[in-house]
């Protein structure tokens, strides 16, 4: 008897936590369809008015473009830097390995505000103005630990037999990597790229320090719009962002499962 009641309480509790996590997000999506001038309850019918307004807002479309380019470039650069590092940590032994690994994962534990301030002031001191390049290198540093963790975890799971077989057949390390390790690592690379794209696309805390009026990302744009109270347009923009960033990992998970089944 205890077991049944105990377990159903646990289930109820978990359901309540889910409601806590999702109610605000669901409400943003629901209110984005409210035709009223003020983005709040009561709902007064259903309309795509605010989406239409968004689609005609050149500023926001530009911010979307900036975010997509920045996220894409961040994903490519971070992964390109993280793969060799993961190879070094998993496939080689060298002095100071553990401390260096911790150092590369350290950005997770450094508050983003400090990353933002430090890079901004350092670049100022070097007489470099805020620029798109600064946003990019900043985002690479922020996302590097996450991609490194994903790639490293996968690399540990790939047995070295295949690589050794390739080497014994005369392949050099680069050929071995290209023909054997890289294809096996592909799922982790894609996951890592996706991860860094989303983190970059969503980042606000550090980005607010680095962005200029000329290269605003969507979150920075939303931050600016908030100054004049929460409008239905923000809810619509939020709903678009939610659908975009949520569908990406779901789609990737689905594709990964299909590929896994196919092979």
């Amino acid at each position, binding site marked *: 008897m205890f077991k049944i009641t105990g377990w159903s309480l646990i289930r109820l509790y978990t359901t309540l936590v889910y409601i806590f996590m999702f109610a605000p997000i669901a*409400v943003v999506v629901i209110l984005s369809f409210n035709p009223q001038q003020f983005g709040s309850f*009561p709902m007064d019918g259903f309309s795509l008015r605010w989406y239409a307004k968004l689609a005609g807002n050149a500023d926001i479309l530009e911010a979307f473009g900036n975010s997509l380019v920045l996220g894409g470039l961040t994903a490519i650069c971070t992964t390109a*830097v993280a793969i*060799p590092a993961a190879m070094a940590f998993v496939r080689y032994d060298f002095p100071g390995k553990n401390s260096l690994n911790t150092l590369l994962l350290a950005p997770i534990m450094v508050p983003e505000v400090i990353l933002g301030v430090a890079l901004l002031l350092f670049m100022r001191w070097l007489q470099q103005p805020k620029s798109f390049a600064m946003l990019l290198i900043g985002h690479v540093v922020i996302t590097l630990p996450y991609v490194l963790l994903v790639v490293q975890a996968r690399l540990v799971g790939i047995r070295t037999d295949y690589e050794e077989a390739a080497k014994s057949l005369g392949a050099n390390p680069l050929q071995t990597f290209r023909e054997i390790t890289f294809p096996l690592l592909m799922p982790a690379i894609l996951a890592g790229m996706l991860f860094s794209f989303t983190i970059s696309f969503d980042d606000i805390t550090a980005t607010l320090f680095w962005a200029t009026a000329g290269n605003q990302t969507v979150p920075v744009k939303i931050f600016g719009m908030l100054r004049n109270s929460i409008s239905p347009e923000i809810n619509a923009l939020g709903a678009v962002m939610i659908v975009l960033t949520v569908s990406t990992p*779901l789609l990737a998970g689905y594709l990964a499962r299909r590929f896994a089944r196919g092979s």
Partner: protein
Amino acid sequence: MNENQHSSWRPWALLAPSLGAVFLLLVVPVCFIVVYSFWLRAPSGADIVAFQFGNYSKFFQDFFYPSILLRTIRVSLECVFLCLVMGYIPAYFFYRSKTRFKSLLMLLIMLPFWISFIIRTLSWINILGDTGLINYLLVSAGILGEPLGMLYNEGAVLMGLIQYLLPFMILNIYVSLEGIDQSLLEAARSMGCTEWQAFREVTLPLSLPGVSAGSLLVFVLSAGTYLPPMILGGPGNEMIANLIFKRVIGTLDWPFGSAISVILLLLVGTIVWTYNRYLGINQVFKAMQ
């Protein structure tokens, strides 16, 4: 092994780009703001190279700034506590549940992690605001005469923080629950423990590494954030990151902003260092894979 000795330069070549990036873009800039925090702010607005503790004594000269530091610590601790209370049971649910939707449910709890922080933060305005969901329901049901002011206080800030940080806590606890050897539980049960005793004596103690790793992560991330206090809090709910933001972006007082950043860094650094000394930091990274 022979090959590794032969090519001992190779791992360093592979590490060069990432080490270079982290060193040049994180380590050097952070050292730079430590130096900057000793500089002087001239009345003209220029920064003068100097070595003086004026920025730090300004922080500690009266109770205003230290009280914000203390509030940051208190709110972050409250956040850790609430995340523990709200997170342990769902993590335990994932661990014990045999439903075939388990992976879907886990994916769902991680979904907010993918949603922009600013949207998740401002979404609470729609829930707690004067014309938000709760007030709308209570007023139209006739329970309240006029809307309850639930926004712009510490409770609202905590809502935003918890919604941001809870997935980290759940994931950390879940990872350490998953690592528990099932035979230990079976042994406890076969020796006559009730389910509750087995949980208390076996599961709970063995899940503590995840609990502490999650708590560390939640504390550190909470102490370094300015968005929930800025959007959901009132003037009395500012945290230390808000001060940094104001000094660096608002008043452009960079030496003082650097000094506050260094104080936050010291707070976080001391906690992370102590944790690493006694418990090992790698537990924290384990959950993120």
